[in-house]
């Protein structure tokens, strides 16, 4: 994943090695999180039980069922959703040139919520797979409207235009959601489970959802990688980017398509999980500097680390039951985020 090979050893002692080392440390951190995600939970398992379960020994034992059909799917979902949200956040902050942006700023979450609420209320959908598709449809409708507004008129797709269009759509969709919820009491019960965001609820269902939406995620990741260098140059300003041969319209359009694919499928799989998309790119910048390529690499590990960490803590906090990851992520994420903002060498926002 090295596009700008920063091998400046020849120019002096480079910044290549420190970044490689940071990525390695993050990889080890992710490994530990995956491990912790398999070991910790309502039922304490020993290391050898987990190991045996993963190797397929004693496949009928409770330990094996817990690991293979509950915890492993959950960890996999956490990794995929964490990557998708972190990368979507990285792209949206770059495209809008706004450190406070997250995928929600384009109206993605509001559109998804509205579609889900309408689906529950008018058509009686309740399975998480159906709600997943509904949320993708809602997110797409919202983003298409935002892009129609943003890419029309005089100043094409200026960041501020996209943000304003997103804010307007968010307001409209939120009030539709609120009015339906106000009218229909039963809808709230299904909706409130969806809205907090979760990695759990019967591992196999999530896993099915994961595989169902995986093609969209993979396309989103591929487009992200494709636009990464253009977005990297775009950080130097529009004129500079144009002068360096970057087609702004194309890069922004593809970038937004990638954001929708990633954020909407993440929402479809795990419900709307906030904050991760906002905070992760900042942590990545504090570790890696301005380079989009290196921050992208860092986000691949940081997103899952934060999400799995929040999920594990949510499982351990309560004696019985658990706190949904969408709630925990905010409580863990905010202190991490604030300390990065507070102590990083350069002002971040």
């Amino acid at each position, binding site marked *: 994943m*090295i*596009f*700008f*090979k*920063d*091998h*400046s050893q*020849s*120019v*002096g*002692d*480079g*910044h290549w090695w420190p970044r490689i080392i940071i990525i390695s440390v993050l990889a080890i951190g992710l490994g530990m999180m995956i491990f912790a995600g398999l070991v910790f939970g309502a039922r304490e398992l020993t290391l050898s039980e987990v190991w045996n379960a993963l190797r397929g020994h004693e496949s009928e034992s409770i330990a094996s069922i817990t690991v293979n059909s509950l915890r492993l799917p959950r960890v996999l979902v956490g990794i995929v959703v964490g990557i998708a949200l972190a990368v979507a956040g990285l792209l949206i902050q770059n495209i809008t040139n706004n450190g406070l942006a997250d995928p929600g700023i384009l109206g993605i979450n509001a559109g998804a919520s509205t579609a889900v609420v309408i689906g529950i209320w008018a058509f009686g959908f309740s399975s998480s797979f159906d709600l997943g598709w509904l949320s993708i449809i809602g997110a797409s409708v919202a983003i298409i409207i935002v892009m129609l507004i943003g890419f029309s008129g005089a100043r094409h797709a200026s960041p501020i235009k996209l943000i304003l269009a997103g804010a307007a759509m968010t307001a409209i969709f939120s009030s539709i959601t609120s009015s339906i919820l106000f009218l229909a009491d039963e809808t709230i019960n299904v909706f409130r489970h969806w809205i907090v965001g979760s990695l759990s609820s019967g591992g196999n269902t999530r896993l099915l959802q994961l595989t169902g939406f995986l093609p969209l995620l993979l396309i989103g990741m591929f487009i992200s990688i*494709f636009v990464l*260098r253009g977005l*990297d*140059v775009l*950080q*130097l*300003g529009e*004129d*500079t980017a*144009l*002068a*360096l*041969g*970057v*087609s702004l319209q194309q890069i922004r359009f593809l970038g937004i398509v990638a954001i929708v694919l990633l954020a909407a499928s993440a929402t479809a799989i795990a419900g709307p999980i906030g904050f991760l998309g906002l905070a992760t790119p900042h942590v990545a*910048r*504090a570790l*890696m*500097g*301005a*380079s989009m390529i290196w921050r992208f690499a860092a986000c691949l590990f940081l997103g899952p680390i934060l999400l799995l960490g929040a999920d594990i803590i949510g499982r351990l906090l309560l004696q019985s039951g658990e706190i949904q990851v969408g709630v925990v992520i905010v409580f863990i994420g905010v202190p991490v985020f604030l300390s990065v903002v507070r102590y990083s*060498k*350069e*002002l*971040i926002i």
Partner: protein
Amino acid sequence: MIRVENLQVELSKQTVLSGVDLEIENAKLSMIVGPNGCGKSTLLRSIAKLISSAKGKIILDKRDVKNIPIKQFSKMLGFLPQNPRSPQGLKVFDLVSRGRAPHQSFLRQWSDSDEAAVKSALEATAMTGNHNRLLSELSGGQKQRAWIAMILAQQTDIILLDEPTSALDLRYQFEIFQLLKTLTEDHGKTIVTVVHDLGIAARFADHIVALKEGRVVASGASKTVLTSENLQKIYDWPCAVMQWENYPLIIPLDNLETA
């Protein structure tokens, strides 16, 4: 050679350039001067293909720039805006390596020629020792040299700079323009800059283009353009012009009409 023919630009329904014709010679340092709002930056940005609504022709190597694809154009001409945006956490080496973007693609990644271009750009701007520092840690002059190194790494024959020294003190201004002069004389670069400081223009320009209200009022060598009659016409202000060695020396006078 760059040839501009009957260039007309309207920005938000205001006429900014009304029929500009000019020729810019290869391997020379040309400067665009004129009062605030006369269209200097717009002229430069039009040549850099940054103003899509520009009417008229801009011919570069016998080709209308409109017909040159953006990627190919970015290998021919480099442009440095007046206030480029520097993202937080950007190191000098990273910035300069961004200048290689036109030469790279999804399939063609970082190569030895990119490495060599970045190295020589850092050397030419005397930034090799600072390559691993954050842009925000640098002085104004160093920062500007880093940006110029980025443009040099782009390895274009033509370089356009919009007021490259507007925030710099005398010494840094001088250093930057000496560097630009060397680039034209020793490396055959064609450089066009917008400048405000007539002292700099008098001292360094091979060719001066004076604009007023969107038209060229004078064009030529510094001695022919920077005369007291021309300056009165361009700036509506009386100036005395003397000669120091071979350079015009401009002294603004009291304006008796407004005093």
